[in-house]
Structures are given as C-alpha cells and as structure tokens.
C-alpha cells in the first residue's frame, strides 16, 4: 500500500514538473518569434520577401531617396555659388 502511495506521489510530481516546464518555455518563445517577424528592410519590406509588391515598394523607396539626392546635390551647388550681402560702413 505504501509503495502505491509513493508511486502516485512520484507520478503527480513528475507530471506537475513537466507542466511547469512547458509553461515556462512558451512565453519566452513569443517575443523571440515577434522579433524575427519584426525585421524589415529600410523600405519597410521583409528582407526575404521577393514578391512583386515588395519589389515595387523597394523600388519606390529607392526613387524617393534618389529624389532627395537631387535636392542635396542642388544644395551643394548653391552653397558653392553663394554671394554675401555687401557690407557698408
């Protein structure tokens, strides 16, 4: 009889430990998974997304920055052609 009681206690302890172990692992897996899916390129697409929509979005991001470079280049030219207001005294 005593052996049966000890056996039941051991089974309950093992089952409880297993349940605790599984519950402890699950929350940790969540953020890791989210971190993986949150990785995107500078244009907002996933690095592994080679769909037509992603390609179009990536190309649009390139074009927007190239437009900005044109503006930057104009600023360079303007800064090198600057003329001060003539001073008098």
């Amino acid at each position: 009889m005593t052996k049966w009681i000890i056996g039941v206690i051991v089974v309950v302890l093992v089952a409880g430990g297993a349940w605790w172990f599984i519950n402890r692992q699950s929350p940790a897996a969540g953020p890791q998974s989210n971190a993986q899916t949150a990785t995107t390129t500078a244009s907002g697409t996933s690095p592994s997304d080679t769909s037509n929509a992603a390609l179009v979005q990536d190309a649009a991001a390139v074009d927007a920055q190239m437009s900005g470079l044109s503006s930057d280049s104009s600023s360079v030219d303007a800064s090198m052609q600057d003329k001060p207001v003539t001073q008098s005294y």
Partner: protein
Amino acid sequence: MQPKHLLAGAVIATLLAPALAFAQAGAGVNASVTTGTNGATVRGTVSADAITNAKARADQEIDRRTSSLGALLTRVNAMARVDASFKATLATTIQNQITALSNLKATIDADSTLSTLKVEVQSVTKSYRIYALVMPQAAISAAADRVQTIAGLMTTLSGKLSARLASSTTVDAAASAALTDANAKIADAQVQATAAIGHISGLQPDNGDKTTMASNLAALKLARADIRVAQQDFVAARKDFTTILNSLHVSVSATSSANVQTQ
C-alpha cells in the same frame, strides 16, 4: 526802412540760420537738413544714416546665414551613415557659427557710433570665410550620407532581384547583365561617397590665406564631382533595375516613377 537796416537784418538772419538749423537737427538723429550750410549738422545726419544702413545690411547678411545654417544643421543631425565623430564635429561647428552670428547681431544692434560699428561689420565680412567653407562642407556630407542610404536600399533590391532571377525557369541574359552592371554602379557610388567625405573632412577656414583658400576650393570641387558621379551611377543602376523588373513582368511605373516626378 533804411538800406542800412535792411543790410544789417540780412546779415543777422544769415548768421542765425545755421544755429537754428543745428537746434532742429539736434531733436533727432534722423531729422532732415534743409539748410545745407552747417557742416557739423550734415556730417551728423550722414553719420546716422550710415549707421542705420550699415546695421540693416549686417542684419540682413546675419539673418541669411543663420537661416541657411539652421536648415543645414537639421539635415546634418538627420545623417545616419557618415562617421559619428565627423558628424558631431560638423554639427558643433555649425551650431557655434549660429551662436557667434547671434552674438554679433546683438552687438551690432547695440552699437551707436560708426567707429565701433565699423569693427563689428568687418567681423561680418571676415566670418564669411568660415560660412563659405562650412556650408558646402555640410551640404556635401549630407549628400554623401544620402548616397550611402540609397546604396543600402539598392543592395537590398538587387539581392531580391537576384533571387527572383535565380528562381526563374528561363534565363534572361539581358537581365543578368543588368544586375551585374547595377551592382558595379552601386559599389562605385559608395566609393565616390567615401572619397567625397575624404576630400572635405579635414578642411579648415582659410583666414584670408590665398593658398588655403585655393586648396579648399579645389577639394570642394572634387567632392562635388564625386557626388555627381555617384548620382549618375544610381541613375544607371535604376535603369538596370527597370530592365530586370520588366523581365520579371513587375510593373513599377504606377508607383515609383510617380514618386520621382512628384518629390
């Protein structure tokens, strides 16, 4: 009335006129002079006009520079790809210039004599040498930073296009060649941007030294040429991408082309 009396009255009136005019002018520095016969009064008014004019011109130039430097400081602070130390040095230099100009303007506005104002206005002219270097230096840095940003975006897009071409059942030689060319252009643009920063990062204001002025100008021109080459590289790479996208039957005309035209 006797002719003698008339003559005496005319002489007295002539002698008193300058004194009356002086009293009138003394009421305010901007009062107009109508007699034109008293040298001291005319000089005083001309001096007041000169002070007003000198202050207006100095303020106009200081405001112009402060506005340009402020806009450029915002752009410099947004740079993400250049060396952090170089960026910090550039931002500090610009901020120091803005502060110096603000202080100079306050001093000029408080000046009341032409002699002291002359010294301050000369400072406006002298400080232009710093401004004339910092502005293109920062503008080129911002452009070089943008080149690196575009290179990153294009590299990502190139990788995706490469994957798509690799998974395609048919081999498009033109698309493959375009991809190779695009990658070469992206790499060259990055080299140009690095070279542009290298040309300008160590420049110092000339302080009136003609040799330094000439070498600074030469370095700025080289850097500007590098940025232009990088820009042309990107235009060529973008055309290559269009070739590849067309090969993959991906239409980008409705989005990306529109962005280029409107921004």
